[in-house]
């Protein structure tokens, strides 16, 4: 199975959302990274200052190195965040004071400016600043290393807070972008929708070229659409002409054959010959009926898509049809009884007439001589047109089947007809939004009902 392609709107929205999501994620990581770096930098700044303050307080002397730990340096470390503080002061590689297990800088030889490094320590991780100094002890320079460490909980708390805020900013910008992308999709697709609405609004027979102001991007579509409309118009015209021509060309020779056969029948004395001629005439009759119904059917199919929308006076139409069929009915001594109240529907007159013609033709075909066919028109919604005969009825067959193309009643093998008649009626009904049904008539016969929505 082929997957339906995504709608343009959905595709546009999804792409914009994807971009928004990527931007939101980039924003999130950028904000977080910058903030974490800033937090780290500020911690490094304080740590470095504390380390330098301690280094400043180093003093040499004859009996060794002394140090006066500056209280404020430590206090300030605590003021930024409530983090644990460790320190270590080494002279000549031996710990003078502080936490002697505090890890020294990874590369030996810390500089005069502090170096910073992160290291696991005890049960946690610490950020360490280390600075080296030379101190004169007994007039000899002694290397002293000062290290100040601080746990990173405060920084982590900042990072977490920042991450939450960054997530909120990311989410917020995503939501904003999502809303904007919906608006954008709407405005971008607006001209397409307007064009579609303009084309959809057209009448059924409106095959004019589309002349709707559209953005330049849609011009190729319009050009292609107009080309297609022109081809469609041409194809429809050709089809109609072809069907009409075909019917025309087959009918004239059929008429000749029929006339010849009748003449021959009159003059022939041989009963066998006469029977053959009758068969020829029946075949001609069937061909001509088929040609007529094919033409009707083609007309119905062709016009269903572009139905004329005119007000049709059904009473007048029914009377005219009854009139036209009168001589035919007379040949079988059939009475056509018309009971019509005024009623109008909105629709295609030619199609409704074709339906009526097929209904009456069918009724005459199946009626036994000297019976009455009732043609009834009852206004209302829907309007009902009923053609009731005293023929052989449905004989228990499903009416639905009879309206299928080329289906004929099992009991109608000996009656000429192509089986398209009822199909045409059903198609006309559905093209008008109505329906058609066939029922067994009370007291024998068939009752065909065509319902059309009232005007």
């Amino acid at each position, binding site marked *: 199975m082929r997957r339906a392609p995504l709608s343009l709107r959905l595709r546009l929205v999804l792409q914009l959302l994807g971009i928004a999501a990527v931007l939101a994620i980039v924003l999130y990581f950028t904000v977080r990274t910058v903030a974490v770096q800033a937090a780290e930098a500020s911690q490094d700044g304080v740590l470095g200052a504390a380390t330098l303050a301690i280094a400043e307080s180093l003093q040499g002397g004859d009996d060794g190195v002394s140090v006066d730990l500056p209280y404020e340096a430590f206090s300030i470390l605590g003021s930024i965040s409530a983090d644990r503080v460790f320190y270590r002061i080494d002279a000549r590689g031996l710990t003078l004071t502080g936490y002697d297990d505090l890890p020294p800088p990874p590369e030996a030889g810390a500089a005069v400016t502090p170096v910073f490094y992160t290291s696991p320590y005890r049960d946690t991780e610490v950020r360490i600043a280390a600075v080296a100094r030379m101190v004169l002890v007994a007039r000899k320079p002694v290397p002293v290393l000062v290290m100040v460490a601080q746990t990173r909980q405060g920084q982590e708390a900042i990072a977490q807070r920042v991450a939450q805020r960054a997530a909120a900013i990311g989410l917020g910008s995503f939501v904003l972008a999502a809303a904007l992308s919906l608006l954008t999709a709407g405005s971008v697709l607006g001209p397409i929708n307007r064009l579609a609405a303009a084309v959809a609004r057209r009448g059924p027979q409106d095959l004019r070229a589309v002349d709707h102001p559209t953005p330049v991007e849609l011009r190729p579509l319009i050009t292609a659409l107009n080309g297609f409309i022109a081809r469609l118009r041409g194809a429809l015209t050709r089809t109609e002409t072809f069907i009409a021509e075909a019917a025309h060309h087959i*009918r004239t020779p059929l*008429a*000749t054959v029929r006339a010849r056969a009748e003449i021959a029948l009159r003059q022939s004395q041989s009963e066998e010959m*006469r029977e053959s001629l009758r068969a020829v005439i029946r075949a001609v009759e069937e061909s*001509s009926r088929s040609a007529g119904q094919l033409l009707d059917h083609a007309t119905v199919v062709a016009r269903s898509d572009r139905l004329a929308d005119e007000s049709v006076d059904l009473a007048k139409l029914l009377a005219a049809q009854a009139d036209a069929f009168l001589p035919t009915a007379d*040949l079988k001594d059939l009475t056509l009884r018309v009971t019509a109240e005024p009623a109008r529907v909105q629709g295609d007159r030619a199609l409704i007439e074709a339906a009526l013609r097929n209904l009456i033709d069918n009724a005459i075909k199946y009626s036994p001589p000297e019976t009455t066919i009732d043609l009834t028109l009852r206004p209302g919604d829907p309007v009902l047109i009923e053609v009731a005969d005293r023929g052989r009825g449905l004989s228990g067959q499903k009416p639905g089947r009879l309206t299928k193309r080329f289906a004929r009643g099992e009991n109608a093998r000996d009656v000429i007809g192509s089986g398209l008649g009822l199909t045409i009626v059903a198609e006309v009904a559905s093209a008008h939004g109505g329906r058609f049904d066939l029922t067994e008539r009370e007291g024998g016969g068939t009752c065909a009902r065509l319902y059309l929505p009232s005007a």
Partner: protein
Amino acid sequence: MRFLLVEDNPDLALSVAERLRLDGHAVDPAASLTEAGDCLAAASYDLILLDISLPDGDGRDFLRRERRSGRDTPIIVMTARAEVSDRVDVLDLGADDYVTKPFDFAELEARCRAVLRRRGNALQTVQHYAGLTFNPLNASLVVAGEMRELRNRELRLLEILLAAPERIFSKAQICDRLFSYAESVTDNAIEVYVARLRKKLEGSGARIETVRGLGYRLTAE
């Protein structure tokens, strides 16, 4: 009756003319509009059978000209085009009726009769025989001053028999003309109509005689 048959297809024109002549009608064929005009100038017709597509013009133009000229010979259009719009067109242009090719001659005759009846020139066709007065146009039969209604098939049976009194028509011949070829008819069905017509003819000098093994004939007492 006298027909003008305007039809350009020679085969069809010939066949139709021959077929109509079999029923006792006079037929002048015309293969174009020009020929049709010549015929109309030379003689008068009871009815014109008009094709639409002709070599020198459209039948509808002829129809329009005829109606404008004030002549009102009834015109029945024969067409191969069965489209609804065509039918409406020709009736609007003044045609009296319309048949689609190929047509049933019985139906054509019925339509002709109906057209003539509507035009009211029924008198020309009244036939008298052995005390009965018969007008096939309005299906009226007068026997001894009494009006008797004939149904269509009774009328046509009488018409067949009255066309050649004393001539024997076989059941098959009558069948072919009385019933459509699509109907399956038993010999019995003819006897029914013969019996009915005999009843309608009672009181006149005419009667239908059964010639055993051969058929029926109309004879005068």
